[in-house]
């Protein structure tokens, strides 16, 4: 199996300028070519190839790409196309091409540079000057190559990390109710269930769910673990596994929270816990029963009644074995709605750094919610509209994970 060592990008092998680098010298006169070679050897460059004409130069470049090319002006014969050809062969990359010689005019220097030369080395110059110029270019070349290796290795690491994170994110989204479950509940119980799930980073600490209980009743819950990111996300997987695999009193919210709490105490690290609201909707009795564990107060709308802020009192899950929870029961007839959300919705800060605030949420619900028992705005439910208005004034990404559920009991059509 994999070792537990974190796979950090490997550092490029260190090497020193000159030693392992290859320099190609193009010069028609053997005497001067030999002088340049001596300078290079004196600098510690071990691999020096010499070409006496353009054909030899191109053949040498193709045989073994050099780290630096020095071409005497005499080899160009007043025609810069050799530089262009070289660039075409080796690419526009970082390979330095230096032109050595006496330049007759500014126009010639300009033409040589325009053709793709990296630098001009004007003669006459001493061996020491030539060495200094070449050393600068070789060091640059070495640094560029090292940098490219680092960048390549970081890119590889990043690509892998993004792929792994995407896989984890897909797994997290799979914890949430799928379309089939959602539409199944909507049809069976005559409700509409809109949801929004938005992590502040790739993974988040929120989870919500819905499950049928019997022909008249179903449950919904929203749970928000402290923090966000990978650590909080791991806790959502814990909770999901507990809910899936252990038989819990799902039709009694207070007992349900008590049971989950006892499972989480000792399982979560000391400063981590979860805020959760668990609700059961009874469509025969027209009642909503819910219990909360440190969760934000739910907002409940009943036709022809003022908007109601549900009570919420209860220790967050995972803090104390002694915690107990209590059920609250409210009327929930057709046309009523329940709006649940994680604290990010009102704790998030606007451009000026001010929290949005719970009263702001209430104002949005009044604007976007069903009016006087009529179906939700545009028949599309208030959630999309509410979030549009919210994000018109709130900057993304939010600092915390946001989950919002909007559950509406639909009104049976008369006739």
């Amino acid at each position, binding site marked *: 199996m994999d070792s537990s060592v974190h796979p950090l990008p490997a550092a490029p092998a260190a090497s020193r300028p000159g030693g392992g680098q290859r320099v190609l010298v193009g010069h028609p006169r053997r005497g001067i070519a030999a002088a340049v070679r001596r300078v290079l050897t004196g600098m510690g460059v071990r691999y020096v190839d010499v070409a006496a004409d353009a054909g030899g130069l191109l053949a040498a470049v193709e045989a073994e790409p050099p780290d630096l090319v020095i071409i005497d002006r005499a080899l160009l014969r007043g025609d810069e196309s050799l530089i262009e050809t070289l660039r075409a062969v080796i690419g526009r990359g970082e390979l330095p091409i230096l032109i050595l010689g006496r330049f007759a005019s500014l126009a010639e220097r300009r033409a040589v540079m325009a053709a793709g030369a990296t630098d001009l080395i004007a003669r006459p110059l001493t061996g020491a000057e030539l060495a200094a110029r070449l050393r600068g270019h070789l060091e640059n070349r070495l640094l560029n190559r090292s940098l490219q290796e680092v960048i390549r290795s970081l890119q590889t690491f990043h690509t892998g990390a993004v792929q792994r994170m995407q896989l984890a994110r897909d797994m997290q989204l799979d914890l949430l109710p799928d379309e089939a479950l959602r539409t199944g509940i909507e049809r069976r119980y005559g409700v509409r269930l809109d949801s929004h799930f938005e992590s502040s980073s790739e993974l988040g600490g929120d989870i919500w769910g819905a499950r049928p209980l019997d022909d008249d009743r179903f449950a919904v819950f929203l749970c928000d673990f402290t923090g966000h990111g990978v650590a909080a996300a791991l806790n959502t997987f814990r909770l999901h596994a507990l809910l899936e695999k252990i038989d819990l009193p799902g039709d009694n919210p207070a007992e349900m929270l008590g049971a989950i709490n006892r499972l989480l105490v000792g399982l979560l690290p000391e400063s981590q816990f979860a805020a959760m609201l668990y609700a059961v909707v009874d469509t025969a009795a027209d009642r909503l029963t819910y219990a909360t564990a440190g969760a934000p107060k739910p907002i409940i709308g009943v036709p022809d009644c003022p908007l109601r802020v549900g009570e919420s009192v*209860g220790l967050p899950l995972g803090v104390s074995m002694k915690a107990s929870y209590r059920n609250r029961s409210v009327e929930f007839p057709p046309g009523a709605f329940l709006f649940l959300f994680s604290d990010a919705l009102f704790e998030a800060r606007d451009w000026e750094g001010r929290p949005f605030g719970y009263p702001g949420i209430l104002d949005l619900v009044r604007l976007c919610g069903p009016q006087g028992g009529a179906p939700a705005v545009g028949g599309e439910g208030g959630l999309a509209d509410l979030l549009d208005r919210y994000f018109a004034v709130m900057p993304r990404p939010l600092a915390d994970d946001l989950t919002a559920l909007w559950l509406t009991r639909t009104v049976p059509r008369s006739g």
Partner: protein
Amino acid sequence: MNYTVRNLGGVREIELRGQLTFEANDDFRKIIDGIEKDGITACVLGLDSLDFIDSAGLGLLVLANNTANRANVRLTLKHPRGQVREMIEISEFHTIIPCDF
């Protein structure tokens, strides 16, 4: 967040100001260290001037309480106001850490 500390005999009074959030983690852990190691018998966290607390801040209170329990230090909260009071009430933190409202 910033804070001031006053020691009266074995009782330490710490006045918290500003916001108790994840950003306060490093500072608050120094407070927790003091509860554990300074040989005090009681610690009062004064919340009059604390404007805001989030779930990460509540997590720090849990840590402080657990540390105090282990070190036999009596930890209490004092005078939470506004949003801080509401968070403490919603989360029933006064049932695990005595709170003087």
